[in-house]
C-alpha cells in the first residue's frame, strides 16, 4: 500500500502547487486605459479669407463623424469664391471623437518638416496660381506662404487669386501628405502617407 500512499501524495502535491498557482492568476477585470485618439481626423474645414476684407470668409467643410467607423464621409459645403479677389486659405482640422475636440492643425504646424499640402483644380481656374495645381507635378505653381525649417513649403497658409473668368462645378482637391524623413524640396503628392484627401465642388462667380 506504500505505492498507493505515494500516488496520493503525488496528487496532493501537484494539486497544492496548481492551487497556489491558479490562485496567483487573479482576474483583474480592468478595462484598457482611456487613450487620446491621436490618429483620427473627423472634421476638416477650409477657410478662405479675403485679403482685402477679413470679414469676407468662405468656408467649406468635410466630416467623417465616426472616424474609423463605417459611416461615410460627407462633404458638407462647396467652395464658392468671388471673381477678382485675393484669398488666403487656411484650415481647421479637428478630431471630434475627443472631448474637447483635439486641434490637429497645431500638430501639423509643429511638425512642418513632415507635412505638406498639395492641391489640384481645373486648368486655369485661378489667375494665380496658374495651371491645375501640384498634385500631378510637385513643381507646378502654388502660392505657399509658409516654409519649414529646411526652407520647404508647408501650405497651412496659401494664397489664391481669382480672375475675371468664372467657373462652376469644378473640383478642388486638397491633400495633406505626412512625409516624415521623406519630405524634400522635390517630394510630391504621392510621397509619404495621406492624412487627408478631400474633393470639394469649386464655384467662382
Amino acid at each position: 500500500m506504500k505505492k498507493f500512499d505515494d500516488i496520493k501524495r503525488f496528487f496532493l502535491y501537484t494539486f497544492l502547487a496548481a492551487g497556489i498557482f491558479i490562485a496567483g492568476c487573479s482576474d483583474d477585470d480592468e478595462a484598457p486605459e482611456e487613450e487620446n485618439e491621436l490618429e483620427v481626423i473627423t472634421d476638416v474645414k477650409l477657410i478662405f479669407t479675403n485679403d482685402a476684407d477679413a470679414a469676407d470668409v468662405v468656408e467649406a467643410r468635410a466630416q467623417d463623424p465616426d472616424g474609423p467607423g463605417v459611416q461615410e464621409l460627407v462633404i458638407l459645403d462647396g467652395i464658392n469664391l468671388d471673381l477678382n479677389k485675393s484669398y488666403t486659405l487656411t484650415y481647421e482640422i479637428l478630431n471630434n471623437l475627443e472631448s474637447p475636440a483635439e486641434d490637429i492643425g497645431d500638430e501639423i504646424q509643429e511638425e512642418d518638416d513632415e507635412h505638406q499640402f498639395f492641391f489640384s483644380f481645373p486648368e486655369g481656374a485661378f489667375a494665380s496660381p496658374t495651371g491645375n495645381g501640384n498634385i500631378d507635378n510637385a513643381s507646378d505653381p502654388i502660392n505657399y506662404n509658409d516654409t519649414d525649417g529646411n526652407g520647404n513649403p508647408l501650405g497651412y497658409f496659401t494664397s489664391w487669386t481669382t480672375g475675371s473668368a468664372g467657373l462652376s462645378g469644378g473640383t478642388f482637391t486638397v491633400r495633406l501628405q505626412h512625409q516624415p524623413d521623406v519630405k524634400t524640396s522635390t517630394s510630391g503628392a504621392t510621397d509619404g502617407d495621406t492624412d487627408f484627401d478631400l474633393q470639394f465642388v469649386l464655384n467662382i462667380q
Partner: protein
Amino acid sequence: MKLVLLLSIIFGLHTALTAQDTDSCSYELKGVIVDADTKEALPYVQVNVRGTQQYLQTDINGEFHFKELCNQSNTLFISCFGYCDTTCQHFYKQGEKPYIYLKKEVISLEEVTITANRSKEKGTASISQQSISKEMLSVDPTQSLALAISEINGVTFTSTGNNVQLPVIHGLYGNRVLILNNGIKHGFQNWGTDHAPEIDVSTASRVTVIKGAAGVRFGPEALGGAVITESDPLHLKEPLKAKVGTGFQSNGHGYFINSEIAGGLKKWSYHIGANYTRVGDMHTPDYSLTNSGKEEKSVNGGLRYHLNDLDLKVYYSYLSQNLALLRSSVAHSGTAIVRAINSEEPNIISDFSYDINQPNQLVQHHLGKVEATWRYSEDAKLTFRLGSQLNKREEYDVRRNADLPIIDLDLITHDFQLEWKHPNWGRTNGLIGIQAFTQNNDNNPGTGTTPFIPNYNTFRYSAFVIESLVSDKNTFELGLRLDYEYNNVRGRETNQDIFRDEYSFTNLTSSIGYIRILSENTSLRSNIGTAWRTPNMAELYSFGQHGFKTSYGLLRYYYDEIENGKLRTDRVTALRESDVSPEKGYKWINEWRTRKNTSSYALTAYTHYIKNFIFYRPLAVIGTIRGPMPVFIFDQADALFIGTDFSWNQEWSSSINGTLGVSYLWSKNLEKNEPLINQPPITVDYKFAWKMREFWNAESSLITLKPSYTLRQFQAPKTVRPEELIGGSVVIAQESEIFDFKNAPAGYFLLDIAWQLKFGQFDAGLSIQNVFNTRYRNYLNEMRYFADEPGINFLFTINYLFNSKSK
C-alpha cells in the same frame, strides 16, 4: 509511453546451439542488451521472438535467455518501455540511428543496427505526422520556425514579409494550428497573418508536425494540426558537449552566433544555450527591400534531476525580437493603396541598412516550465507540468505618432497539466489528463489610439482520456475531451466608452483512429478527429485600420434592420446576443506508407469540414477623410478542404537518395460556393542528397539539391483592382463575391543547393538559396502586393563541436 522506443529489428540470428539435439524445439538464444555508448546493461527491455508467443524482459544485468526455440534462425523484436524510456533515451538522440549491442561474450553475433520508431504523442499515433531533426534545422540557423517546417509535405507558411512567418498545415494557420513549445501551448498574440510564434528554431532539438485534428490531446486550436517543438532532451550520463557556431548570409548581410553546452551526470543533466542573429535589409534580384531586417536574441536553459523513478525537469527560455516590416507596405489612403499595389517596384527603396524603422514589431517572450514525471511502475507514470509565459509585444506603425507603439500588449499565460499514463488494462493502454489554462491580456497605456484588441482573461478547464488497443496488427485509438472555457473581455470604443462582455463555452471533442500493419513494409493509418475553437479576439473585436486594411470584427458590426439592413459599426454586440458560434472542425486523415527494396512511398489524403469557419472578406468601399478605402469584415461560413500529400523516396545508390514531394489542396466556402482566399497552391519538389563517407580531407560530405516548382494558385478569388473599386466601376456590397486586389502570382521554379562538410570537430556548410536569382512572388506572403521575394542568398555556417569523450 509504452511504445516509446519500438525497436523492430529484422535480422537473421544464428542461435547459440547449446545442445545438438534432434528435437527440433530445443534451440536456445541468449543475449545481453547494452547501451551502445556507455556499454551499460539495459534492464526491462522486452524481447520477443518473432512468430512465437515467447516474450521476455531483460533482467537487471540486461540479459535475456530464450529456451525451446524451434528454429535455428530467429528474428527478434525488441521494445523498451517503462523504466527504459528513461535509460533508453540515450539511443534516440535526434536523427541518429541507435545501436544496440548484443554482448559478444554471451553470443557470437555481429553488432546489430536497429532502426527506432520514435514514440508518437498519445492520441496522435494514427494521425499522419512528420519530424524535422536538429541536423536539418541547423542547415539554416537564421530561418523561422515556419520556414523550417515548410520542408514537410503539406506544410507551408503564410507570411507578412520575410520575418513574420506562420506555419500553414493543409491550408489552415493562425490559431487553428497549435504550437506546443516544450509541452506548453505557446502563449502569444495569435491573430492575423502578421504575428508569428516567437520561437527560436535554432534552440529546438526536434520539431514535429501533426497534420490532423489533434484537439483531444492538445486542446482547442489544434483544429488544423499541431507543431511540437522540443528542446534538448536532457539525457543522463552524457559526456559534456559544447557547440559554438557562427555564420554569414550574403542577402541582408546577416550574421549569427549560436552556442550551447549540455551534459549529463548520473542524476543530473543540464543544457544552456544562447543565440544572436542580425539581418539587414534583404534584396530581391532588382531592388532592396527597405526595412526588412531583424535582430534576435535568445537564451535558454534546462535542468533535470533524476531520482529512482522520479524525474524533475525545469526549463526556461527567453527570446527578444525586433522584426522590420517592409516600409512600402504601409498605405493610408485609397490612392496610396492603388499606387503601392500597381507599381512594379516598391515606392520606397533606400540603400542597404541594418536599421530597423517603423513599421516594426518588438517582442519579448519568456517561458518557464516545471515538469515532474513519476514512473511508479513499469507501465505507468504520472506527469505534472506547470508552465508560465509572458509575451510582451509592441508594434510600431508609420503614422503621426510613430515613436509610440500602436499596439502594446502584455499577455500572461499559465498552464497546468496533470497526466496519468495508466497501467495496461489488458491490451489497452492510455492516458488520462486534466488541464487548466489561463490567459490574461492587458493593453499598456500610451499608444495614442483606441486599443485594437481588448483586455481579456481566459480560463479553460479540460479533461481528456485517450485509449489505444493493440491487437496483433491492428491498433485502435480513441480519445475524448471535455473543455469548459470562460472569457471576460473589456475594451474601448473609439469615443473611449468602455464595453464589456463575458461568455463561456463547453465543448466535447473526440477522435477515433486506426492503424493497420498490412505487411512488414506497409502500414495504413486513419483518423477522424473533431476539434473546436473559440473565435480569437481579433476576429471578434478588431476595429479600424491596421496595416493597409480597415477591418471590423464579428462583434463590431451589425446590420440595422430598421434601415434596410444597413451596415453599422456604432456599437459592440455581446457575444450571446450575436449569431457568432465557435468553429467546429471534422477532419478525416489517412496515411498509407510502404517500402519496397530501395524505395518508399507515403500517401496522405484528407478531408476537412469546418463549420462556422471564420474568414476575412472585403465588404465595401467607404469614403473616409483619407479618400475611399476598401473595408473588410470577418465573416463565418461552412467550408470544406480536401487534399493530398504524396512523397516518394528512392535510394538510387548507397550514397544517393532522392525524395519527391507533391501537395495539393482544394478548398471551398460551401455556403457561398466560392473559393477561399490565401490557400496554398500546388507544390512539387525533389530533394536530391548525395552523401559521401570520405571526401578529400573531410570525414563526410553531404550535398543536397532541391529544385521545387510552385504553381500559380488557380483557385484564387477573382481580381478586382483597387482603382476599379475606388473609381466606382466595380461596386461591392454585403453579398458581393470574395475578391483579391491582385492576380495570384505566376508559378515559379526555385533551386536550393546545400553542401555540408565535417572535418573532425568542425562542421561547415555552404548553401545557396534561390540559385537562379529568380524573380517571384509568393501567394501566401501578404507583401506580394508590394514587392518580390528575396533573390539569391549564399549562406556560410561553421560549427565547432566539443565532446569531452572523443570517439
